[in-house]
């Protein structure tokens, strides 16, 4: 068995009284694109800084390809970082920026020039080598920062919310490019973001972090479709969380009693336990079909058009909470309209945490 590209063992971080990270255990597979996702203050940037060597953990160990690096300074780690504000050297040409890491490693001038050129071509900026940093746009600076970090061929590339400062369209485009470049170079990427759409678009593995702990981790499909906790279910896209209680356990199925009725669905939980059902808006329908059960009759409170669909909030008679659902693009909907709501219990996910 080969060593994982990165391994955190029992890593904790405290700043004074504040606990920023609590017993983090995480192994990152070689060559994967891992996204650390979570709200601000969740600990994801702290974890990245510990991996980059900018912070030493209060306790625990960090390994890169099997060797311990917990207290190795950034300069001597096989990691490089793409910073949120790019942190390019304003007084150097673009070629000098990209070549900086190679120069520090004592790579001879001729080889350095060749590798810088190749790195610039990789990010699509081969023609800009002699320009100055301030002549570039935000997206171009982003690419230079990427080229500068990748040219030294790190074992792990760290990306600290690198797309945060770009406008939406450019951000989507850079996501695709990042993904393509990662596939091409095969380097392990660890990317921090608070944007769950970005996380799903680029990550092979998503690690959801909250309050200094790992809430959930797995493939984007797994984390989105089978969220492990209430936090993940709410944080990953729009969702309806329906609180309930387990009334009966039957083999690998449980019956959950909620304000909207009792549902029999797959999962394991103890009888009497307080649980939640995650029901995505796209799994709630205004008409019945085979396998669907009724949740009740409701009235549309709010409706908005999102291009690909209409999103509405529906208040069910006798309930305080509203349920979110998606209606097809061409289905016109008005606030005040009355709707029957149906869902397939197979689409409901049992959440015990």
């Amino acid at each position, binding site marked *: 068995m080969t060593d994982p590209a990165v391994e955190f063992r029992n890593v904790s971080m405290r700043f004074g009284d504040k606990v920023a990270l609590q017993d983090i255990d995480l192994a990152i597979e070689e060559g994967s694109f891992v996204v650390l996702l979570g709200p601000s203050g969740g600990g994801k940037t702290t974890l990245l800084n510990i991996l980059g060597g900018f912070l030493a953990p209060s306790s625990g160990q960090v390994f890169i390809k099997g060797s311990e690096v917990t207290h190795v*300074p950034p*300069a001597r780690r096989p990691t490089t970082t793409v910073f949120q504000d790019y942190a*390019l*050297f304003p007084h150097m040409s673009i070629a000098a920026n990209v070549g900086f890491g190679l120069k*520090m490693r004592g790579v001879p001038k001729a080889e350095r020039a060749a590798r810088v050129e190749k790195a610039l071509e990789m990010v699509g900026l081969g023609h800009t080598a002699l320009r100055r940093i301030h002549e570039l746009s935000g997206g171009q600076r982003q690419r230079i920062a990427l080229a500068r970090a990748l040219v030294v061929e790190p074992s792990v590339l760290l990306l600290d919310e690198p797309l945060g400062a770009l406008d939406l369209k450019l951000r989507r485009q850079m996501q695709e490019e990042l993904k393509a470049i990662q596939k091409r170079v095969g380097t392990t990427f660890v990317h921090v973001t608070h944007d769950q759409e970005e996380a799903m678009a680029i990550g092979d593995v998503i690690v959801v972090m909250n309050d200094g702990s790992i809430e959930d981790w797995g493939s984007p499909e797994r984390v989105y479709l089978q969220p492990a906790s209430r936090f993940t279910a709410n944080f990953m896209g729009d969702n309806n969380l329906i609180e309930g209680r387990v009334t009966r356990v039957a083999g690998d199925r449980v019956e959950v009693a909620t304000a909207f009725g009792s549902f029999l669905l797959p999962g394991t939980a103890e009888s009497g336990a307080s649980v939640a059902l995650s029901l995505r808006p796209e799994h709630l329908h205004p008409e019945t079909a085979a396998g669907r059960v009724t949740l009740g009759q409701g009235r549309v409170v709010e409706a908005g058009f999102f291009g690909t669909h209409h999103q509405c909030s529906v208040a069910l008679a006798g309930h305080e909470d509203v349920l979110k659902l998606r209606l097809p693009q061409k289905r016109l909907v008005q606030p005040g309209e009355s709707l029957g709501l149906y869902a397939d219990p197979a689409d409901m996910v049992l959440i015990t945490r």
Partner: protein
Amino acid sequence: MPAALLHALRALPIWLYVLLLYGFIFLPVGVLVLFSFQESRIPVPPFNGPSLRWYEAVFSDPRMMDALANSVAVALLSSLVAVVLGFLAAYALARHRLPLAGLLQGFLTAPLTVSYLIIAMGLLITFNQLGVPKSLLTVGIGHVVINLPLCFAILYSQMGEHQANIERAARDLGAREWQVLVLVTVPMMWPALFASFFLSVTFSWDEFIIAFMVSRFDVTLPVEIWSMLRTGLNPKTNAVGSFVFLISIATVLILDLVILRSRKA
């Protein structure tokens, strides 16, 4: 037309005010410069120049020229020392968590609020106690004392979180501490270093009280001018005064050009 006239009339008091204000500031200097070109021996109206004879007298006076050389040496060397010390102090306080950082910073900037006279007296007493003879060296030390806080304040204000991140990037790419300083921090801070150096030079160049109190045989230009003034006014003092003013203006202009250029970049 009447409307335009009315508008012009309304603007008149404003222009009058501007004229008075600038006159108040620049008239003395203007008079000084004008009568440095006086032909006769007394710098009072009527003006009967222009003549360069007094400039000639200044530049052929060996005592004046010695004082000029002393002033240049003291200004350049003391400013260099002030910038280097100010930079190191600013770097330490901006980049590291030091115990009592607030207090250290307070003590570094405090001399800005103390009058030059008090500083000069303090230095004089200290040098006397230590048995350090009064010389150009003590003048230079005095000028470092007044300029170091200024250099520190300018440089510290320019070392923000963004700059710290750029240094972090350099470390991340394998640079050692000295390489970070030499290859990244200093070049990145170049405009601020330049500005604090030139400001120090102008302050040292026309500083009088400290230079007067802690010097003895070798003196700087302002002290030489003062001893010349004691024998009475003559256009030669105007000429050397104009020259000092010209150098100060030139330094400020260079500074302005460099800062403006770096702002645009």
